[in-house]
């Protein structure tokens, strides 16, 4: 029951038009609004300093999200944003949480929203950032802690595309061969590291992420559709012929713009649509 005891003197009236057409605070719960967090002091003796404003949130705690301000001594850490985050974790605040592994742009762990666009922290140089720079976890995903988002659904969508070679022909004695030209068709599609910068930046995936597969999964889907050795193209296309799974893509192309590997998911999706047409819709 809602407590109305503080409203007894109020004249009864219709409430919803007061905020029409936008609900109060855009419908964002009070606890979800980002508060100003802790501002850490400038490290002693530092001459070259970069300021990082970093999103902090622990869903298991009692507090809502906050923005902490860190000052990084650029002469004491490596050149990349990931180096700065590791420097903060080891020298300033050990509770700062983020994913990282390879530190050279091939594992896709450290994807985050840097100055408003998605990129992997290990391939973004500190001297490319604004002052102060803002660091958020990837958008449109539940936060596990700080910069670590829950990507379970994205990996389930990736698995839906069945990213493996499907064959009917019995395995030959040696590898299944492919000409140099056939192999070249996969260039620009096989290199995806599944950082999900693209899917997290896709407005279609924001509105319909439960059903739209998103650019990362569709790029992988095309990588297997385009493979000359694959014999499952029919069923692959069957699984994609859906108004939501594939056709929610409205070629906004945030995906292509944000890919830290320089891939073009927008083109991959266009290729899928072309192949779908060839099949006779």
């Amino acid at each position, binding site marked *: 029951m809602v407590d109305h005891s503080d409203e007894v003197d109020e004249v009864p009236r219709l409430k919803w038009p007061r905020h029409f057409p936008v609900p109060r605070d855009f419908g964002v719960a009070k606890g979800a609004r980002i508060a100003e967090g802790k501002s850490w002091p400038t490290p002693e003796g530092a001459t070259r300093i970069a300021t990082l404003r970093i999103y902090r949130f622990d869903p298991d705690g009692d507090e809502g999200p906050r923005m902490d301000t860190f000052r990084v001594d650029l002469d004491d850490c490596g050149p990349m944003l990931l180096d700065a985050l590791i420097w903060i974790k080891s020298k300033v605040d050990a509770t700062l949480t983020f994913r990282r592994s390879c530190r050279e742009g091939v594992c896709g762990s450290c994807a985050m929203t840097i100055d408003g666009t998605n990129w992997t922290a290990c391939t973004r140089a500190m001297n490319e950032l604004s002052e102060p720079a803002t660091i958020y976890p990837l958008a449109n995903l539940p936060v596990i802690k700080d910069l670590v988002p829950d990507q*379970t659904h994205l990996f*389930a969508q990736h698995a839906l595309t069945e990213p493996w070679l499907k064959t009917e022909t019995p395995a030959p004695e040696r590898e299944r061969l492919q000409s140099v030209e056939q192999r070249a068709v996969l260039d620009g599609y096989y290199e995806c590291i599944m950082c999900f910068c693209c899917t997290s930046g896709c407005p279609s995936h924001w509105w*319909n992420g439960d059903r739209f597969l998103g650019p990362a999964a569709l790029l992988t889907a095309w990588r297997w559709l385009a493979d000359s050795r694959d014999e499952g193209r029919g069923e692959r296309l069957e699984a994609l012929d859906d108004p939501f799974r594939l056709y929610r893509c409205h070629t906004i192309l945030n995906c292509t713009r944000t890919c830290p590997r320089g891939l073009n998911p927008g083109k991959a999706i266009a290729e899928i649509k072309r192949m779908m047409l060839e099949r006779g819709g």
Partner: protein
Amino acid sequence: MTRPRITPYSAAHGLGAAGHAARHWWAQRVSAIALVPLVLWLVWALANGGATDYAALSDWLKSPINTILMILLLIAAFHHAALGLQTIAEDYIHSRARFAVIALVQLACAAGGAAGIVATLLIAITS
């Protein structure tokens, strides 16, 4: 993005692929391309004295070529509108109201197209 309490696999698969989506997408492209020359034709014709007054307009529309092009324009425009509005409804309406809105959009576009075609034919064959 809401996360229902089912397995991630089940959530991602949903009710499976619906099919027929490629046809919808292609019809949207084809009607859009058809509209380019048809709208240019209409603008060009009206700008060249077709629409100075009622008599001039109905005289202009009576010519068989204009009648046919006008009917094609109405078909393409209302078909394209129905497809596009359905896409918008699918994008932004996440409740079951989507089904009602899409049905309404399609009925309204069919009605609009029918009214336009009947009006064009009436002008073409009467008086």
